[in-house]
């Protein structure tokens, strides 16, 4: 959630500095952007996506397995008609403090499923559809801008598994 109006900030910045030209404009442009969207560069987390247990996946993705169950909501069906297409929604009342959502499916061959970077989104909520191989807990973790983690867990029962093995 963007709090400042970038254009007004930049114009008044230039006015105060009394400066001319490209150098200040370029510096101003960089300084005025919300920090989260500045030169965002998130390498694909291949190693974490390859981990085969929930604890090793969480350790690789988050740097910890010790996450408090709070401040996050996870919407998912109690019983999934089709394990190949399970709709989930992760959300949090922490708003712009949420930097990322991480999704894990405990019993999948590789539990780490997705990572979402909430750079300038206006609402801490994301939805997608995932594959589940069997009945399992789904864990949604919110990572805040100050490096804390919170999670919500929901068990989804799967009658027809969706990993296609």
């Amino acid at each position: 959630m963007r709090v400042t109006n970038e254009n007004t900030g930049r114009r008044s910045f230039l006015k105060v500095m009394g400066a001319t030209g490209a150098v200040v404009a370029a510096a101003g442009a960089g300084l005025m952007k919300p920090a989260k969207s500045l030169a965002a560069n998130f390498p694909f987390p291949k190693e974490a996506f390859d981990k085969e247990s929930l604890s090793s996946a969480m350790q690789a993705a988050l740097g910890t397995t010790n996450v408090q169950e709070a401040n996050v909501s996870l919407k998912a069906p109690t019983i999934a008609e089709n394990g190949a297409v399970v709709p989930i929604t992760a959300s949090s009342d922490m708003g712009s403090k949420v930097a990322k959502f991480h999704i894990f499916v405990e019993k999948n061959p590789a539990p780490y499923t997705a990572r979402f970077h909430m750079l300038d989104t206006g609402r801490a909520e994301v939805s997608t559809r995932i594959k589940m191989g069997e009945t399992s807990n789904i864990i949604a973790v919110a990572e805040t801008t100050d490096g804390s983690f919170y999670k919500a867990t929901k068990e989804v029962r799967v009658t027809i598994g969706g990993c296609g093995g």
Partner: protein
Amino acid sequence: MAKTGTARIRVGSAQKGQAVQVRSLILHPMETGLRKDPKTGKKIPAHFIQKVKADFNGDRVFEADWSVAISKNPYLSYYLAPQSSGTLKMTWEDNQGGVFTAEAEVKVG
């Protein structure tokens, strides 16, 4: 059979400074690499979208990293809080070098 990479974005009507929902869908097999071709018995190679990027008026507002466990023909919804009208551009990149894009105009009233 509709073509891999065909994508669609829908954005609700936006009020300045308010969050508006973005819904996207792209046709893609999201093949895990674990499945065997029933005819040949050979494993079908993994073919899945790894990276999704969303830019609004040139600024990155949202990004996603996906594993093979995202469903086929992946649906993705997130929110935007536009300060002005503009163009939302999404890019999907898969593990076989496929790059697919779609755009939507967002009118802030």
